[in-house]
Protein backbone atom coordinates (compact mmCIF):
# COMPACT_ATOMS: atom_id res chain seq x y z
CA UNK A 1 0.00 0.00 0.00
CA UNK A 2 2.59 2.51 1.13
CA UNK A 3 4.80 1.73 -1.83
CA UNK A 4 1.89 2.49 -4.20
CA UNK A 5 1.54 5.92 -2.64
CA UNK A 6 5.26 6.45 -2.93
CA UNK A 7 5.22 5.43 -6.57
CA UNK A 8 2.54 8.00 -7.24
CA UNK A 9 4.54 10.73 -5.57
CA UNK A 10 7.68 9.60 -7.33
CA UNK A 11 6.08 10.29 -10.71
CA UNK A 12 5.78 13.88 -9.61
CA UNK A 13 1.99 14.11 -9.35
CA UNK A 14 0.96 15.96 -6.18
CA UNK A 15 -1.26 13.60 -4.17
CA UNK A 16 -3.94 16.32 -3.85
CA UNK A 17 -4.78 16.32 -7.52
CA UNK A 18 -4.48 12.58 -8.14
CA UNK A 19 -7.74 11.37 -9.63
CA UNK A 20 -9.11 7.89 -9.12
CA UNK A 21 -8.24 7.15 -12.73
CA UNK A 22 -4.59 8.05 -12.19
CA UNK A 23 -4.38 6.00 -9.01
CA UNK A 24 -5.69 3.02 -10.90
CA UNK A 25 -3.23 3.57 -13.72
CA UNK A 26 -0.38 3.94 -11.20
CA UNK A 27 -1.51 0.77 -9.51
CA UNK A 28 -1.53 -1.02 -12.85
CA UNK A 29 1.94 0.21 -13.73
CA UNK A 30 3.25 -0.82 -10.34
CA UNK A 31 1.73 -4.23 -10.78
CA UNK A 32 3.31 -4.64 -14.22
CA UNK A 33 6.68 -3.56 -12.90
CA UNK A 34 6.45 -5.87 -9.89
CA UNK A 35 5.61 -8.66 -12.29
CA UNK A 36 8.58 -8.04 -14.51
CA UNK A 37 11.10 -7.51 -11.73
CA UNK A 38 9.62 -10.26 -9.57
CA UNK A 39 9.99 -12.88 -12.26
CA UNK A 40 13.45 -11.61 -13.14
CA UNK A 41 14.48 -12.07 -9.50
CA UNK A 42 13.07 -15.57 -9.13
CA UNK A 43 14.14 -16.71 -12.61
CA UNK A 44 17.63 -18.01 -11.71
CA UNK A 45 16.26 -20.06 -8.84
CA UNK A 46 13.32 -21.31 -10.89
CA UNK A 47 15.70 -22.47 -13.65
CA UNK A 48 17.84 -24.63 -11.35
CA UNK A 49 14.77 -25.68 -9.35
CA UNK A 50 12.99 -26.96 -12.46
CA UNK A 51 16.07 -28.45 -14.11
CA UNK A 52 17.56 -30.25 -11.12
CA UNK A 53 14.61 -30.95 -8.86
CA UNK A 54 11.25 -30.85 -10.61
CA UNK A 55 12.37 -32.34 -13.92
CA UNK A 56 14.23 -35.33 -12.42
CA UNK A 57 11.33 -35.81 -10.02
CA UNK A 58 8.83 -36.02 -12.89
CA UNK A 59 11.15 -37.94 -15.19
CA UNK A 60 11.89 -40.48 -12.45
CA UNK A 61 8.18 -41.09 -12.11
CA UNK A 62 7.97 -41.68 -15.86
CA UNK A 63 11.02 -43.96 -15.81
CA UNK A 64 9.35 -46.10 -13.13
CA UNK A 65 6.81 -47.18 -15.77
CA UNK A 66 9.50 -48.14 -18.31
CA UNK A 67 12.12 -50.85 -18.62
CA UNK A 68 14.82 -48.22 -19.13
CA UNK A 69 18.44 -49.30 -18.60
CA UNK A 70 21.78 -47.54 -19.04
CA UNK A 71 22.17 -48.84 -22.59
CA UNK A 72 18.97 -47.05 -23.54
CA UNK A 73 17.32 -50.37 -24.32
CA UNK A 74 13.88 -51.20 -22.99
CA UNK A 75 12.78 -47.59 -22.78
CA UNK A 76 9.19 -48.34 -23.75
CA UNK A 77 6.33 -48.11 -21.30
CA UNK A 78 5.59 -51.35 -19.46
CA UNK A 79 2.77 -50.19 -17.20
CA UNK A 80 2.91 -51.23 -13.58
CA UNK A 81 5.32 -54.14 -14.14
CA UNK A 82 8.12 -52.53 -12.11
CA UNK A 83 5.82 -51.86 -9.20
CA UNK A 84 4.40 -55.39 -9.34
CA UNK A 85 7.94 -56.77 -9.39
CA UNK A 86 8.95 -54.59 -6.44
CA UNK A 87 6.02 -55.82 -4.35
CA UNK A 88 7.11 -59.42 -5.00
CA UNK A 89 10.80 -58.65 -4.41
CA UNK A 90 11.92 -60.06 -1.04
CA UNK A 91 15.10 -57.91 -1.10
CA UNK A 92 12.98 -54.78 -1.49
CA UNK A 93 10.80 -55.78 1.47
CA UNK A 94 13.80 -56.68 3.55
CA UNK A 95 15.40 -53.29 2.79
CA UNK A 96 12.21 -51.50 3.85
CA UNK A 97 12.12 -53.47 7.09
CA UNK A 98 15.80 -52.71 7.71
CA UNK A 99 15.16 -49.02 7.11
CA UNK A 100 12.20 -48.95 9.51
CA UNK A 101 14.15 -50.93 12.10
CA UNK A 102 17.10 -48.56 11.83
CA UNK A 103 14.70 -45.61 12.18
CA UNK A 104 13.16 -47.01 15.36
CA UNK A 105 16.50 -48.01 16.88
CA UNK A 106 18.20 -44.70 16.07
CA UNK A 107 15.44 -42.14 16.69
CA UNK A 108 14.86 -43.02 20.36
CA UNK A 109 18.49 -42.59 21.53
CA UNK A 110 19.10 -39.68 19.16
CA UNK A 111 16.31 -37.75 20.89
CA UNK A 112 16.83 -38.95 24.48
CA UNK A 113 20.63 -38.78 24.55
CA UNK A 114 20.52 -35.34 22.91
CA UNK A 115 18.16 -34.18 25.66
CA UNK A 116 20.35 -35.58 28.44
CA UNK A 117 23.51 -34.06 26.94
CA UNK A 118 21.84 -30.66 26.57
CA UNK A 119 20.51 -30.72 30.15
CA UNK A 120 23.94 -31.64 31.50
CA UNK A 121 25.76 -28.99 29.48
CA UNK A 122 23.15 -26.34 30.28
CA UNK A 123 24.00 -26.54 33.98
CA UNK A 124 26.73 -24.06 33.16
CA UNK A 125 29.80 -25.93 34.34
CA UNK A 126 33.13 -24.39 33.39
CA UNK A 127 34.60 -25.42 30.04
CA UNK A 128 31.44 -24.91 27.96
CA UNK A 129 33.47 -24.84 24.74
CA UNK A 130 34.90 -28.29 25.50
CA UNK A 131 31.47 -29.90 26.08
CA UNK A 132 30.08 -28.34 22.92
CA UNK A 133 33.14 -29.40 20.97
CA UNK A 134 32.87 -32.99 22.19
CA UNK A 135 29.22 -33.48 21.37
CA UNK A 136 28.79 -31.29 18.30
CA UNK A 137 32.09 -31.77 16.47
CA UNK A 138 31.36 -35.28 15.12
CA UNK A 139 28.30 -33.86 13.32
CA UNK A 140 30.63 -31.77 11.16
CA UNK A 141 32.58 -34.80 9.94
CA UNK A 142 31.95 -36.28 6.52
CA UNK A 143 30.13 -39.62 6.69
CA UNK A 144 33.26 -41.24 5.27
CA UNK A 145 35.48 -39.95 8.06
CA UNK A 146 33.05 -40.99 10.80
CA UNK A 147 32.60 -44.42 9.22
CA UNK A 148 36.34 -45.05 8.87
CA UNK A 149 37.00 -44.08 12.46
CA UNK A 150 34.30 -46.51 13.62
CA UNK A 151 35.33 -49.33 11.30
CA UNK A 152 38.66 -49.08 13.08
CA UNK A 153 36.98 -48.84 16.52
CA UNK A 154 34.99 -51.99 15.72
CA UNK A 155 37.94 -53.99 14.38
CA UNK A 156 37.53 -57.43 16.02
CA UNK A 157 41.21 -57.92 16.98
CA UNK A 158 42.65 -54.41 17.02
CA UNK A 159 39.68 -52.16 17.77
CA UNK A 160 39.22 -50.10 20.87
CA UNK A 161 35.67 -51.37 21.48
CA UNK A 162 36.64 -55.00 21.96
CA UNK A 163 39.76 -53.95 23.83
CA UNK A 164 37.73 -52.04 26.40
CA UNK A 165 35.05 -54.69 26.65
CA UNK A 166 37.80 -57.27 27.02
CA UNK A 167 38.97 -55.44 30.12
CA UNK A 168 35.65 -56.33 31.77
CA UNK A 169 35.76 -59.90 30.48
CA UNK A 170 33.63 -59.72 27.32
CA UNK A 171 34.75 -62.04 24.50
CA UNK A 172 35.68 -60.25 21.24
CA UNK A 173 32.73 -59.59 18.92
CA UNK A 174 32.94 -59.08 15.15
CA UNK A 175 30.57 -56.11 15.37
CA UNK A 176 30.11 -55.34 11.68
CA UNK A 177 30.22 -58.95 10.46
CA UNK A 178 27.88 -60.47 13.03
CA UNK A 179 24.19 -60.40 11.95
CA UNK A 180 22.97 -59.89 15.52
CA UNK A 181 25.27 -56.94 16.20
CA UNK A 182 25.75 -55.21 12.83
CA UNK A 183 22.66 -52.99 13.06
CA UNK A 184 23.34 -52.08 16.70
CA UNK A 185 26.92 -51.18 15.76
CA UNK A 186 25.68 -48.93 12.96
CA UNK A 187 23.18 -47.26 15.32
CA UNK A 188 25.91 -46.53 17.91
CA UNK A 189 28.07 -44.97 15.19
CA UNK A 190 25.11 -42.91 14.00
CA UNK A 191 24.39 -41.75 17.55
CA UNK A 192 28.00 -40.65 18.01
CA UNK A 193 28.12 -38.97 14.61
CA UNK A 194 24.82 -37.06 14.49
CA UNK A 195 23.51 -36.51 18.04
CA UNK A 196 25.27 -33.13 18.12
CA UNK A 197 22.65 -31.57 15.88
CA UNK A 198 19.72 -32.48 18.12
CA UNK A 199 21.83 -31.59 21.14
CA UNK A 200 22.31 -28.12 19.70
CA UNK A 201 18.61 -27.61 19.03
CA UNK A 202 17.81 -28.65 22.61
CA UNK A 203 20.50 -26.38 24.02
CA UNK A 204 19.05 -23.40 22.13
CA UNK A 205 15.56 -24.25 23.38
CA UNK A 206 16.83 -24.52 26.97
CA UNK A 207 18.33 -21.07 26.76
CA UNK A 208 14.98 -19.67 25.69
CA UNK A 209 13.08 -20.82 28.78
CA UNK A 210 12.27 -17.67 30.79
CA UNK A 211 14.44 -17.53 33.90
CA UNK A 212 11.59 -16.06 36.01
CA UNK A 213 9.86 -19.42 36.04
CA UNK A 214 12.78 -20.98 37.87
CA UNK A 215 13.04 -18.07 40.27
CA UNK A 216 9.36 -18.18 41.11
CA UNK A 217 9.41 -21.93 41.68
CA UNK A 218 12.56 -21.64 43.79
CA UNK A 219 10.68 -19.19 46.03
CA UNK A 220 7.96 -21.81 46.34
CA UNK A 221 10.63 -24.20 47.52
CA UNK A 222 10.99 -26.35 44.42
CA UNK A 223 14.31 -28.20 44.19
CA UNK A 224 16.28 -28.75 41.00
CA UNK A 225 14.78 -32.14 40.32
CA UNK A 226 11.27 -30.80 40.77
CA UNK A 227 12.06 -27.84 38.48
CA UNK A 228 13.37 -30.21 35.85
CA UNK A 229 10.20 -32.28 35.94
CA UNK A 230 7.63 -29.50 36.16
CA UNK A 231 9.23 -26.65 34.21
CA UNK A 232 12.10 -27.68 31.95
CA UNK A 233 10.75 -30.90 30.44
CA UNK A 234 7.24 -29.56 29.71
CA UNK A 235 8.73 -26.38 28.20
CA UNK A 236 10.82 -28.53 25.87
CA UNK A 237 7.72 -30.34 24.58
CA UNK A 238 7.36 -28.54 21.24
CA UNK A 239 11.12 -28.80 20.60
CA UNK A 240 11.01 -32.53 21.29
CA UNK A 241 8.17 -33.00 18.82
CA UNK A 242 10.07 -31.12 16.11
CA UNK A 243 13.34 -32.93 16.77
CA UNK A 244 11.58 -36.32 16.71
CA UNK A 245 9.85 -35.50 13.41
CA UNK A 246 13.08 -34.34 11.76
CA UNK A 247 14.96 -37.33 13.16
CA UNK A 248 12.49 -39.89 11.83
CA UNK A 249 12.64 -38.33 8.36
CA UNK A 250 16.45 -38.19 8.48
CA UNK A 251 16.79 -41.77 9.72
CA UNK A 252 14.53 -43.11 6.96
CA UNK A 253 17.02 -41.73 4.41
CA UNK A 254 19.98 -43.58 5.90
CA UNK A 255 22.59 -44.77 3.40
CA UNK A 256 26.16 -43.46 3.78
CA UNK A 257 27.35 -45.02 7.02
CA UNK A 258 25.70 -48.39 6.37
CA UNK A 259 27.07 -48.59 2.86
CA UNK A 260 30.55 -47.79 4.15
CA UNK A 261 30.57 -49.92 7.29
CA UNK A 262 28.71 -53.10 6.33
CA UNK A 263 27.88 -52.66 2.61
CA UNK A 264 24.40 -53.68 3.72
CA UNK A 265 25.60 -57.00 5.09
CA UNK A 266 26.06 -59.45 6.55
CA UNK A 267 23.56 -61.22 4.32
CA UNK A 268 21.58 -58.06 3.70
CA UNK A 269 20.50 -57.59 7.34
CA UNK A 270 21.49 -53.92 7.34
CA UNK A 271 20.84 -52.98 3.68
CA UNK A 272 18.59 -49.86 3.70
CA UNK A 273 16.15 -48.96 0.90
CA UNK A 274 18.32 -46.14 -0.44
CA UNK A 275 21.17 -48.60 -0.88
CA UNK A 276 18.88 -50.96 -2.78
CA UNK A 277 17.80 -48.11 -5.08
CA UNK A 278 21.48 -47.35 -5.61
CA UNK A 279 22.39 -50.99 -6.31
CA UNK A 280 19.53 -51.62 -8.72
CA UNK A 281 20.25 -48.33 -10.51
CA UNK A 282 24.03 -48.32 -10.61
CA UNK A 283 25.22 -51.90 -10.41
CA UNK A 284 22.29 -53.53 -12.13
CA UNK A 285 21.74 -50.46 -14.33
CA UNK A 286 17.97 -51.03 -14.25
CA UNK A 287 16.92 -47.37 -14.20
CA UNK A 288 13.21 -48.16 -14.57
CA UNK A 289 13.06 -50.63 -11.72
CA UNK A 290 15.27 -48.46 -9.47
CA UNK A 291 12.89 -45.55 -10.07
CA UNK A 292 9.89 -47.65 -9.08
CA UNK A 293 11.54 -48.56 -5.77
CA UNK A 294 12.50 -44.90 -5.30
CA UNK A 295 8.85 -43.89 -5.69
CA UNK A 296 7.66 -46.53 -3.24
CA UNK A 297 10.25 -45.13 -0.84
CA UNK A 298 9.05 -41.58 -1.53
CA UNK A 299 5.45 -42.60 -0.87
CA UNK A 300 6.47 -43.98 2.52
CA UNK A 301 8.30 -40.74 3.39
CA UNK A 302 5.20 -38.72 2.48
CA UNK A 303 2.89 -41.01 4.46
CA UNK A 304 5.15 -40.82 7.53
CA UNK A 305 5.41 -37.01 7.22
CA UNK A 306 1.63 -36.59 6.91
CA UNK A 307 1.06 -39.02 9.77
CA UNK A 308 3.40 -37.03 11.98
CA UNK A 309 1.67 -33.79 11.06
CA UNK A 310 -1.73 -35.26 11.91
CA UNK A 311 -0.46 -36.58 15.21
CA UNK A 312 1.09 -33.30 16.30
CA UNK A 313 -1.83 -31.07 15.26
CA UNK A 314 -4.28 -33.29 17.10
CA UNK A 315 -2.09 -33.17 20.17
CA UNK A 316 -1.85 -29.40 20.26
CA UNK A 317 -5.55 -28.91 19.44
Amino acid at each position, binding site marked *: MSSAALDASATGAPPRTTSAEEVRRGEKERKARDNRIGWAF*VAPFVVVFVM*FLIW*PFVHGFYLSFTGESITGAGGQLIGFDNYAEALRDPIMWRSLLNTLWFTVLSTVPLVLVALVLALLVH*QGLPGQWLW*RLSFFMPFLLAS*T*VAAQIWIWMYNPQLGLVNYMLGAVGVEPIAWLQDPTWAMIAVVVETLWWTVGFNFLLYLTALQNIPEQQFEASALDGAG*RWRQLRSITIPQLGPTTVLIAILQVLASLKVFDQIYMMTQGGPGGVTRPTVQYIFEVGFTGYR*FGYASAIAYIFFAIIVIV*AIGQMRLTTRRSA
Partner: protein
Amino acid sequence: MTTTVTPQPQAVGAVHRQRGRFAEKAGLRIGERFASPGRIGAIVALVLLAAFWLLPFLWAVVTSFKSETAAAATPVSWVPSDGFTTDAYTRVLREGNIPLWTWNSLITTVAITLITLVVTALAAYAFSRLDFTGRRWLFWGIIASIIIPPQVLIVPLFYEMLTLNLIDTYWALILPQVVHPAMVFILKKFFDQVPIELEDAARIDGAGRLRVFWSIVLPLSRPILAAVSMFVFIGAWNNFLWPFIATSDASLMTLPVGLQTVKSAYGLQYAQVMASAVLAALPLVVVFLFFQRQIIKGFATTGFGGQ
Protein backbone atom coordinates in the same frame (compact mmCIF):
# COMPACT_ATOMS: atom_id res chain seq x y z
CA MET B 1 16.23 -11.23 33.15
CA THR B 2 16.35 -12.56 29.64
CA THR B 3 18.71 -14.94 27.95
CA THR B 4 19.63 -14.49 24.32
CA VAL B 5 18.81 -16.95 21.57
CA THR B 6 22.49 -17.36 20.88
CA PRO B 7 24.15 -20.02 22.94
CA GLN B 8 26.88 -17.89 24.44
CA PRO B 9 28.95 -19.37 27.23
CA GLN B 10 29.25 -16.01 28.99
CA ALA B 11 25.49 -15.52 28.98
CA VAL B 12 24.96 -18.95 30.47
CA GLY B 13 27.58 -18.28 33.11
CA ALA B 14 25.99 -14.96 33.96
CA VAL B 15 22.60 -16.59 34.33
CA HIS B 16 24.01 -19.07 36.77
CA ARG B 17 25.96 -16.55 38.75
CA GLN B 18 22.83 -14.52 39.06
CA ARG B 19 20.76 -17.54 39.89
CA GLY B 20 23.27 -18.30 42.62
CA ARG B 21 22.87 -14.83 44.04
CA PHE B 22 19.15 -15.20 43.81
CA ALA B 23 19.27 -18.47 45.68
CA GLU B 24 21.27 -16.75 48.37
CA LYS B 25 18.65 -14.04 48.68
CA ALA B 26 15.91 -16.61 48.77
CA GLY B 27 17.60 -18.14 51.76
CA LEU B 28 18.80 -21.33 50.04
CA ARG B 29 22.08 -22.80 51.04
CA ILE B 30 24.69 -22.27 48.34
CA GLY B 31 26.32 -25.55 49.30
CA GLU B 32 23.21 -27.48 48.35
CA ARG B 33 23.26 -25.97 44.92
CA PHE B 34 26.90 -26.60 44.18
CA ALA B 35 27.81 -29.77 46.00
CA SER B 36 24.66 -31.83 46.30
CA PRO B 37 24.97 -35.51 45.34
CA GLY B 38 22.73 -34.81 42.36
CA ARG B 39 25.04 -32.15 41.08
CA ILE B 40 28.15 -34.25 41.57
CA GLY B 41 26.44 -37.10 39.75
CA ALA B 42 25.62 -34.75 36.89
CA ILE B 43 29.21 -33.60 36.64
CA VAL B 44 30.52 -37.16 36.60
CA ALA B 45 27.97 -38.11 33.92
CA LEU B 46 28.97 -35.14 31.78
CA VAL B 47 32.67 -35.94 32.02
CA LEU B 48 32.12 -39.62 31.19
CA LEU B 49 29.89 -38.81 28.22
CA ALA B 50 32.34 -36.25 26.88
CA ALA B 51 35.12 -38.82 27.22
CA PHE B 52 33.04 -41.33 25.26
CA TRP B 53 32.49 -38.76 22.50
CA LEU B 54 36.15 -37.73 22.34
CA LEU B 55 37.62 -41.23 22.57
CA PRO B 56 37.13 -42.22 18.89
CA PHE B 57 38.85 -39.00 17.78
CA LEU B 58 41.72 -39.63 20.13
CA TRP B 59 42.05 -43.25 19.05
CA ALA B 60 42.09 -42.25 15.37
CA VAL B 61 44.77 -39.62 15.96
CA VAL B 62 46.93 -41.96 18.07
CA THR B 63 46.68 -44.72 15.45
CA SER B 64 47.65 -42.30 12.68
CA PHE B 65 50.92 -41.58 14.48
CA LYS B 66 51.86 -45.25 14.83
CA SER B 67 53.93 -47.33 12.45
CA GLU B 68 51.90 -49.89 10.47
CA THR B 69 53.46 -52.67 12.54
CA ALA B 70 52.49 -51.01 15.80
CA ALA B 71 48.96 -50.27 14.56
CA ALA B 72 48.42 -53.94 13.72
CA ALA B 73 50.04 -55.28 16.90
CA THR B 74 48.18 -57.18 19.59
CA PRO B 75 47.53 -56.63 22.41
CA VAL B 76 46.13 -53.19 21.66
CA SER B 77 48.03 -50.35 23.31
CA TRP B 78 47.85 -46.56 23.32
CA VAL B 79 51.62 -46.08 23.31
CA PRO B 80 53.43 -48.06 20.59
CA SER B 81 56.61 -49.89 21.60
CA ASP B 82 58.52 -48.49 18.61
CA GLY B 83 57.50 -44.90 19.37
CA PHE B 84 55.30 -42.41 17.49
CA THR B 85 56.05 -41.51 13.90
CA THR B 86 54.64 -39.34 11.11
CA ASP B 87 55.36 -42.02 8.49
CA ALA B 88 51.70 -42.60 7.74
CA TYR B 89 51.18 -38.91 6.96
CA THR B 90 54.24 -38.66 4.72
CA ARG B 91 53.21 -41.74 2.77
CA VAL B 92 49.57 -40.64 2.41
CA LEU B 93 50.54 -37.15 1.29
CA ARG B 94 53.25 -38.36 -1.07
CA GLU B 95 51.51 -41.35 -2.62
CA GLY B 96 47.83 -40.56 -2.17
CA ASN B 97 45.47 -38.10 -3.81
CA ILE B 98 44.39 -36.18 -0.74
CA PRO B 99 45.62 -32.74 -1.92
CA LEU B 100 43.82 -33.27 -5.25
CA TRP B 101 40.58 -34.38 -3.57
CA THR B 102 40.73 -31.44 -1.17
CA TRP B 103 41.12 -29.11 -4.14
CA ASN B 104 38.12 -30.69 -5.91
CA SER B 105 36.05 -30.40 -2.73
CA LEU B 106 37.05 -26.78 -2.29
CA ILE B 107 36.27 -25.74 -5.88
CA THR B 108 32.88 -27.44 -6.01
CA THR B 109 31.85 -26.45 -2.49
CA VAL B 110 32.71 -22.79 -2.99
CA ALA B 111 30.87 -22.75 -6.32
CA ILE B 112 27.83 -24.47 -4.79
CA THR B 113 27.73 -22.04 -1.88
CA LEU B 114 28.07 -18.92 -4.04
CA ILE B 115 25.52 -19.98 -6.64
CA THR B 116 23.06 -21.11 -3.96
CA LEU B 117 23.41 -17.83 -2.11
CA VAL B 118 22.81 -15.71 -5.21
CA VAL B 119 19.82 -17.62 -6.59
CA THR B 120 18.07 -18.23 -3.25
CA ALA B 121 18.57 -14.68 -1.94
CA LEU B 122 17.21 -13.13 -5.15
CA ALA B 123 14.19 -15.44 -5.13
CA ALA B 124 13.54 -14.96 -1.41
CA TYR B 125 13.64 -11.18 -1.84
CA ALA B 126 11.13 -11.34 -4.68
CA PHE B 127 8.81 -13.53 -2.59
CA SER B 128 9.12 -11.12 0.31
CA ARG B 129 8.66 -7.81 -1.51
CA LEU B 130 7.31 -8.12 -5.03
CA ASP B 131 3.72 -8.91 -5.82
CA PHE B 132 4.17 -10.75 -9.11
CA THR B 133 1.68 -13.04 -10.81
CA GLY B 134 1.97 -16.63 -9.65
CA ARG B 135 3.92 -15.67 -6.56
CA ARG B 136 1.73 -17.65 -4.17
CA TRP B 137 1.59 -20.92 -6.04
CA LEU B 138 5.27 -20.77 -6.92
CA PHE B 139 6.18 -20.19 -3.29
CA TRP B 140 4.02 -23.04 -2.06
CA GLY B 141 5.40 -25.29 -4.77
CA ILE B 142 8.91 -24.57 -3.55
CA ILE B 143 7.92 -25.20 0.09
CA ALA B 144 6.21 -28.46 -0.86
CA SER B 145 9.31 -29.65 -2.70
CA ILE B 146 11.22 -29.72 0.61
CA ILE B 147 9.63 -33.14 1.20
CA ILE B 148 11.39 -34.65 -1.86
CA PRO B 149 14.47 -36.53 -0.59
CA PRO B 150 17.54 -36.08 -2.82
CA GLN B 151 18.00 -39.86 -2.60
CA VAL B 152 14.85 -40.36 -4.70
CA LEU B 153 16.36 -38.29 -7.52
CA ILE B 154 19.68 -40.10 -7.97
CA VAL B 155 18.63 -42.22 -10.95
CA PRO B 156 16.85 -39.55 -13.04
CA LEU B 157 19.54 -36.99 -12.16
CA PHE B 158 22.25 -39.35 -13.36
CA TYR B 159 20.23 -39.93 -16.54
CA GLU B 160 19.89 -36.16 -17.00
CA MET B 161 23.64 -35.65 -16.53
CA LEU B 162 24.32 -38.38 -19.10
CA THR B 163 21.99 -36.63 -21.54
CA LEU B 164 23.61 -33.25 -20.90
CA ASN B 165 27.02 -34.89 -21.25
CA LEU B 166 28.12 -33.58 -17.87
CA ILE B 167 29.11 -36.81 -16.11
CA ASP B 168 32.68 -36.54 -14.83
CA THR B 169 32.73 -32.75 -14.88
CA TYR B 170 32.62 -30.28 -12.00
CA TRP B 171 29.21 -29.14 -13.25
CA ALA B 172 27.68 -32.54 -12.58
CA LEU B 173 28.77 -32.14 -8.97
CA ILE B 174 27.77 -28.51 -8.63
CA LEU B 175 24.44 -28.00 -10.38
CA PRO B 176 22.19 -30.50 -8.55
CA GLN B 177 23.49 -29.21 -5.22
CA VAL B 178 22.51 -25.56 -5.68
CA VAL B 179 18.77 -26.21 -5.25
CA HIS B 180 17.87 -25.49 -1.61
CA PRO B 181 14.13 -24.75 -1.32
CA ALA B 182 14.33 -24.65 2.49
CA MET B 183 16.88 -21.84 2.31
CA VAL B 184 14.49 -19.77 0.16
CA PHE B 185 11.96 -20.15 2.97
CA ILE B 186 14.43 -19.17 5.70
CA LEU B 187 15.69 -16.12 3.80
CA LYS B 188 12.18 -14.96 2.91
CA LYS B 189 11.19 -15.10 6.58
CA PHE B 190 14.20 -12.96 7.41
CA PHE B 191 13.59 -10.41 4.62
CA ASP B 192 9.98 -10.09 5.82
CA GLN B 193 11.34 -8.62 9.04
CA VAL B 194 13.62 -6.07 7.40
CA PRO B 195 11.76 -2.70 7.70
CA ILE B 196 10.37 -1.76 4.30
CA GLU B 197 10.74 1.97 5.10
CA LEU B 198 14.50 1.78 4.55
CA GLU B 199 13.98 0.56 1.03
CA ASP B 200 11.21 3.03 0.29
CA ALA B 201 13.50 5.91 1.17
CA ALA B 202 16.16 4.65 -1.22
CA ARG B 203 13.61 4.09 -3.96
CA ILE B 204 12.35 7.65 -3.72
CA ASP B 205 15.93 8.65 -4.43
CA GLY B 206 15.60 6.66 -7.64
CA ALA B 207 17.39 3.44 -6.75
CA GLY B 208 16.20 0.37 -8.66
CA ARG B 209 15.19 -2.89 -7.05
CA LEU B 210 18.51 -4.57 -7.68
CA ARG B 211 20.36 -1.60 -6.23
CA VAL B 212 18.12 -1.57 -3.13
CA PHE B 213 18.57 -5.30 -2.73
CA TRP B 214 22.33 -5.12 -3.11
CA SER B 215 23.13 -2.06 -1.02
CA ILE B 216 20.40 -2.08 1.63
CA VAL B 217 18.83 -5.50 2.11
CA LEU B 218 21.92 -7.67 1.76
CA PRO B 219 24.10 -5.72 4.22
CA LEU B 220 21.30 -5.87 6.78
CA SER B 221 21.01 -9.62 6.28
CA ARG B 222 24.61 -10.54 6.92
CA PRO B 223 23.96 -12.85 9.90
CA ILE B 224 21.34 -14.93 8.10
CA LEU B 225 23.40 -15.02 4.89
CA ALA B 226 26.35 -16.26 6.93
CA ALA B 227 24.18 -18.94 8.53
CA VAL B 228 22.82 -20.10 5.17
CA SER B 229 26.28 -20.12 3.55
CA MET B 230 27.68 -22.14 6.41
CA PHE B 231 24.84 -24.64 6.25
CA VAL B 232 25.19 -25.08 2.49
CA PHE B 233 28.99 -25.14 2.61
CA ILE B 234 29.22 -27.85 5.27
CA GLY B 235 26.48 -29.91 3.61
CA ALA B 236 28.23 -29.78 0.24
CA TRP B 237 31.69 -30.35 1.71
CA ASN B 238 30.50 -33.55 3.37
CA ASN B 239 28.04 -34.77 0.74
CA PHE B 240 28.75 -38.32 -0.33
CA LEU B 241 25.97 -40.00 -2.32
CA TRP B 242 25.65 -37.66 -5.30
CA PRO B 243 29.39 -36.99 -5.86
CA PHE B 244 29.94 -40.73 -5.51
CA ILE B 245 27.45 -41.37 -8.33
CA ALA B 246 28.43 -38.45 -10.54
CA THR B 247 32.17 -39.14 -10.68
CA SER B 248 34.01 -42.24 -11.78
CA ASP B 249 37.15 -40.35 -12.79
CA ALA B 250 39.54 -40.47 -9.80
CA SER B 251 40.90 -37.03 -10.67
CA LEU B 252 37.46 -35.46 -10.06
CA MET B 253 36.67 -37.14 -6.75
CA THR B 254 35.83 -35.01 -3.75
CA LEU B 255 37.36 -35.67 -0.35
CA PRO B 256 34.55 -37.87 1.06
CA VAL B 257 34.36 -39.93 -2.14
CA GLY B 258 38.10 -40.32 -2.52
CA LEU B 259 38.47 -41.31 1.10
CA GLN B 260 36.03 -44.15 0.57
CA THR B 261 38.48 -45.64 -1.98
CA VAL B 262 41.42 -45.39 0.45
CA LYS B 263 40.37 -48.41 2.46
CA SER B 264 40.47 -50.75 -0.50
CA ALA B 265 43.63 -49.20 -1.97
CA TYR B 266 45.70 -49.52 1.19
CA GLY B 267 44.51 -52.93 2.26
CA LEU B 268 45.39 -53.39 5.90
CA GLN B 269 47.36 -50.17 6.31
CA TYR B 270 45.48 -48.98 9.39
CA ALA B 271 47.76 -46.09 10.27
CA GLN B 272 47.50 -44.70 6.75
CA VAL B 273 43.72 -45.04 6.68
CA MET B 274 43.49 -43.13 9.97
CA ALA B 275 45.99 -40.52 8.77
CA SER B 276 43.79 -39.94 5.70
CA ALA B 277 40.70 -39.65 7.89
CA VAL B 278 42.42 -37.16 10.19
CA LEU B 279 43.65 -35.10 7.21
CA ALA B 280 40.16 -35.11 5.71
CA ALA B 281 38.59 -34.02 8.99
CA LEU B 282 41.20 -31.35 9.68
CA PRO B 283 39.86 -28.41 7.61
CA LEU B 284 36.42 -28.41 9.24
CA VAL B 285 37.81 -29.11 12.71
CA VAL B 286 40.11 -26.11 12.45
CA VAL B 287 37.33 -23.90 11.09
CA PHE B 288 35.06 -25.06 13.89
CA LEU B 289 37.66 -24.30 16.57
CA PHE B 290 37.94 -20.73 15.30
CA PHE B 291 34.27 -20.04 14.57
CA GLN B 292 32.58 -22.27 17.11
CA ARG B 293 30.06 -19.68 18.26
CA GLN B 294 29.10 -18.56 14.76
CA ILE B 295 28.74 -22.12 13.49
CA ILE B 296 26.58 -23.19 16.43
CA LYS B 297 24.44 -20.09 16.06
CA GLY B 298 24.14 -20.68 12.33
CA PHE B 299 22.94 -24.24 12.78
CA ALA B 300 20.49 -23.13 15.46
CA THR B 301 18.99 -20.67 12.94
CA THR B 302 18.85 -22.93 9.91
CA GLY B 303 18.29 -26.13 11.87
CA PHE B 304 14.56 -26.66 11.82
CA GLY B 305 14.14 -25.37 8.29
CA GLY B 306 17.23 -26.98 6.95
CA GLN B 307 16.72 -30.67 7.40
